């Protein structure tokens, strides 16, 4: 069963003013549980708008956002409860930190949820574990931490709500390769253990190819293509047609295939291409 589904959703900025701009046009898509779905597209393709619709920050002008088959706007007064179930981590989330201690900041949402103190500290501990926040860091002020650490605290603050669906907008933006790996690796581990639905927005095709199970491609306020990561990255030309990059490794693999080398496998990660080459050469290496 798909936890989160979007049906015929439209959204228009500045509706009713001379500055109207359609950001989403009759968009339908669903996100599988226990999987990581990547959302890619140009700036202005509508993906940020879509993200803001998922937890009810924006209300669609047409269509429905369904969580477990029920529209999230069924009871508008209870939209904040929806926000606990669909956790949203915005771009550069470190700017939202405010509490005196890291512990307090991660506990902000659970406290708003009205949980008991013991439940809150349990949630904080668990969220800290997945984001690699040490006990020592928990008692520090969030403003003493490094950029990458702040980022992880902000993500932990959403994980602590124990959402059914987790949406992250460019969680690794501006981080170095190690920082990227730590955050994205931690999240994919979390999905494996908790079975939640994870939606990842990113411009990095390499990260998408490596971490995602499914990919949704947006272009021009519409869904351009949706499918498994295999399906999406095996048709590199189509992505390039709408001006999106593909991982360098899949470009190389595509050129080799075009030369008649019959490579087969996950031709969008370094590992995948390596395996395919070894298989093609008929050996396990040594």
């Amino acid at each position, binding site marked *: 069963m798909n936890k989160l589904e979007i049906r015929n959703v439209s959204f228009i900025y500045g509706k009713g003013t001379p500055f109207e701009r359609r950001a989403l046009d009759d968009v339908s898509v669903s996100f599988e549980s226990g999987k990581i779905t990547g959302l890619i597209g*140009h*700036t202005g393709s509508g993906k940020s708008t879509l993200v803001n619709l998922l937890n009810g920050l924006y209300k669609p002008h047409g269509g429905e956002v369904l969580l477990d088959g029920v529209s999230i706007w069924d009871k508008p007064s209870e939209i904040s409860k929806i926000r606990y179930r669909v956790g949203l981590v915005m771009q550069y989330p470190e700017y939202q930190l405010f509490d005196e201690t890291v512990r307090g900041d991660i506990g902000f949402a659970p406290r708003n949820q009205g949980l008991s103190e013991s439940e809150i500290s349990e949630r904080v501990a668990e969220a800290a574990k997945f984001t690699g926040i040490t006990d020592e860091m928990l008692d520090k002020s969030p403003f003493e931490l*490094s*950029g*990458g650490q702040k980022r992880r605290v902000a993500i932990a603050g959403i994980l602590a709500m124990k959402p059914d669906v987790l949406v992250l907008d460019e969680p690794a*933006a*501006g*981080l*170095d*390769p*190690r*920082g990227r790996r730590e955050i994205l690796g931690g999240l994919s581990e979390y999905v494996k253990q908790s079975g939640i639905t994870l939606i990842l927005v990113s*411009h990095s095709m*390499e990260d998408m190819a490596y971490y995602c199970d499914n990919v949704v491609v947006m272009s021009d306020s519409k869904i351009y293509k949706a499918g498994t990561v295999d399906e999406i990255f095996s048709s590199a030309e189509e992505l390039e047609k709408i*001006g*999106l*990059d593909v*991982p*360098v*490794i899949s*470009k*190389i693999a595509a*050129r*080799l295939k075009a*030369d008649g*080398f019959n490579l087969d496998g996950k031709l969008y990660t*370094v590992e995948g*291409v*390596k395996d395919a*080459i*070894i298989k*093609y*050469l*008929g*050996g396990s*290496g*040594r």
Partner: protein
Amino acid sequence: MENCIIKNENLSFVYDDEGTSVSAVSAVIPPALDDVTVSIKKGEYIAVLGHNGSGKSTFAKLLNMILKPINGRVYIDGKDITCEEFTEDEMFEVRSKVGMVFQNPDNQLVATVVEEDVAFGPENLGLPRAEIRKRVDEALDVVGMAEYANHAPHKLSGGQKQRVAIAGIIAMKPKVIIFDESTAMLDPLGRREVLEIMEKLNREDNITVINITHYMEEAARADRVLIINDGKLLLDGSPREIFSKVDFLHSIGLESPQGTELLFELSSLGYDVPTDAISEDECYDALKTLLGKGGKLA
């Protein structure tokens, strides 16, 4: 020495609690920059790689006197900018020679109109009006933002804002431009635009470009790559030399371009492939040869 636009000797720097420089090397706080010696030739295109907090931004700020080193010497265009007698006027001359573009495009635009922002630097240099006008128009032309001259900066995209910021630096006619993670907050399109301008300035106007980044694919396009880790200059060489050290880069939390990584993996499994290919074409050629040979083991 004559054609070195920048020359550092044993450069060290330490931040104190408030983030300013301290007067003496402290045992408690690790130095942000530790004994760095490097010379940069006029017209070179350099990439500085290192993970967040490695000291690469500190390095940049020492080159135009935003920070003062606690140890070591910095020569800009043959002049020792670290000597005691350096005057304020000379300091501003250095800053006009060594321009700097930062990460967040929003936090470096001063004026409410694009062309007035570009004029900010030349205005500070006290240039005559006609000269400012000429420089502003030329600079906006170079970055392809001439048609936005009268727009408000906050209405532009990230990439466009960053191009305006670059124009503001170009208008000071610098000899060196340091890009301090200037592409980090941009989308792929904006990043490509900024990178193209960077390379055009280097190629056509012979401006020395120092691109501080953690995108490997950007560094791979430079003439020379410096790797800074924990305040130390670890590697200094051509992209080819640097990126073929895949193992070493991993050990300090960095990566090589995907193609190079693949060749490295294959080579360590015993396949006969070069490990110093870095561009897409080179990697493709190497793999094609390998597959064509039927994978003869080395």
